[in-house]
């Protein structure tokens, strides 16, 4: 088995809302090998998105150890996590979360603003990422001028442009029709199989999960099973 890109040990995550404390994850341990495409499934409130946020460095655990790409995330400061995310993680959201006032190309360039690349190099890389996801012809269009499927492709290009080791996708097809969803999922499959990107995808959709190489099921803050598919 190849080395783990994600390693979680005894993860607890508790949220405090007002006077209430909500236990979202309890004693969760998990290893995801490098180059894997994992679909994380489960009912609403099972802790999928919380787990994804912890792996993506958007949140920190209440207790336990998280290691992603050899980096202990639970030891990093807020600023350290920001810099780590910029260099190693690509995010894809359900509702694309593109900047409405920027063109597709400018949206894709956003992560590169945090690098020392020249303006020309940033532009070239953005165009290359848009070409990779098959939407270079819409580079000058704003998100409002794109279909859902096209907008999600731009979001994937933005997630890829800084060449991250891991893509975390939160319901990437949740806002798309079947045809567009299948196109996006097929694209993710290509990125995984042909470009070696490790992908963790949260989804409710069993058809979407079939595109992954492995499915993990969660319920009430714990992993139920892990099985190799495809």
């Amino acid at each position, binding site marked *: 088995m190849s080395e783990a890109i994600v390693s979680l040990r005894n993860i607890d995550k508790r949220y405090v809302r007002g006077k209430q404390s909500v236990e979202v994850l309890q004693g969760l341990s998990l290893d995801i090998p490098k180059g894997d495409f994992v679909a994380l499934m489960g009912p609403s409130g099972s802790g999928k*998105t919380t787990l994804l*946020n912890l792996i*993506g460095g*958007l*949140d920190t655990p209440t207790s336990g150890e998280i290691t992603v790409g050899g980096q202990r995330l639970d030891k990093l400061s*807020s*600023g350290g996590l*920001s*810099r*780590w*995310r*910029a*260099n190693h993680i690509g*995010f894809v*959201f359900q509702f694309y*979360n593109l*900047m*409405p*006032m*920027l063109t597709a190309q*400018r949206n894709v360039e*956003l*992560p590169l*603003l*945090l690098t020392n690349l020249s*303006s020309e190099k*940033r532009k070239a890389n953005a165009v290359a990422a848009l070409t990779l996801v098959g939407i270079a012809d819409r580079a000058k269009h704003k998100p409002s001028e794109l279909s859902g499927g096209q907008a999600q492709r731009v979001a994937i290009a*933005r997630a890829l442009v800084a060449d991250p080791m891991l893509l975390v996708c939160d319901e990437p097809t949740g806002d798309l029709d079947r045809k567009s969803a299948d196109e996006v999922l097929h694209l993710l499959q290509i990125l995984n199989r042909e470009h070696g990107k490790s992908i963790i995808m949260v989804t409710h959709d069993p058809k979407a999960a079939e595109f992954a190489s492995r499915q993990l099921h969660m319920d009430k803050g714990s992993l139920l099973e892990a099985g190799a598919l495809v």
Partner: protein
Amino acid sequence: MKYFPLIWATLWRKKTRTLFTLLSIVIAFLLFGMLETVDYAFSHPSTGTSGADKLISTNKYSITLPLPFADLQEIRSVPGVTDATWLTWLGAYYQESKNFVFALPIDTESYFNVHKDEFIVSDEQMKNYRSTRSGALVNVALMKKFGWKVGEKLPVHSTIWTQKSGSLDWTFDIVGTFDVRDSTQANAQAYTVFFHYDLFDEGRSFGKGTVGWVEERIDNPANAGAIAGKIDALFANSPNETKTQPANDFAMTFVKQIGDIGFVLRAILGAVFFTLLFLTGNTMMQSVRERIPELAVLKTLGFTDGKVLALVIAESLLLCLFAAVIGLGLSYATLPIIGQALQGVQLDPVALIPGLGAAVLLALIVGFPPALRAMRLNIVDALSGMH
């Protein structure tokens, strides 16, 4: 600079709102520029060379208080004073009070000696003026403004001086026109009408034997301060103490009589900026509130808390500075009009520079609270719509 397209695009996210906010800041800074240059002009009297060889002595306590005519001889005896002349403010207008006329009774010989080579008058018209007791010399610009002709009667109404008949109306015969040699003085003299002091002194019902102020020509501008000191020392502790100052500063002193110009201007600007603070501050807060998911995405992509804070403050700076530059630029364009309205007060564009400082201060004050909010944004909460 690499963040500029992002900041600029964010600023114009809601075009109409940004445009109206921009417009209100532009207008505030237009007002700032106009008032600040006037305030600056009054608080920084001219030290230029034009008129540097002339002094003006007024009553120390107010220009509205007269000086005894007898003081003139003593002033003429001060070393360094080559000649002196006397004038009084008629406070006149033509037909309507908005038609201000700077009618000055002058002693012809001494006045044109003190102001040697400053005016252009034809020999023939000057001869007519000297020989006509009710004669008046009128500035060419004023003649043109009201369409007057040489040979016509010129009736003006004084707001101060009654004639022995009880009338406030004074009528002169226009016998000639004059122009100024120094074009920088064109505005200062644009409303001037000269007429004979004898006619005025004999005609007025009170104040005989007094003058409004005395103008002195001096031999060396470098000694202006010392000569002014000597003149004022002559009348120290007398019932009519004098205040002698360079002629350039006189116009400002004249306008200052109506009150503390600086205080009035600062009060207006204070009110304007106080309102602007709330307006722009509210816009910035609203703008950031609407963009919470976008700011959360930036943080997700790796923008640190400090970078997000800097981006929002930069946006505020860009908005305020951009609008301030337009507003101050427009106020710069209005300087000639204001200068004309203030009768020759010299307005210096350097007074506009603090406007840029005010814009930066405004941007920091209105930008910091929303920037702080953006900086403290929790990504998970913001993305899940809990903010």
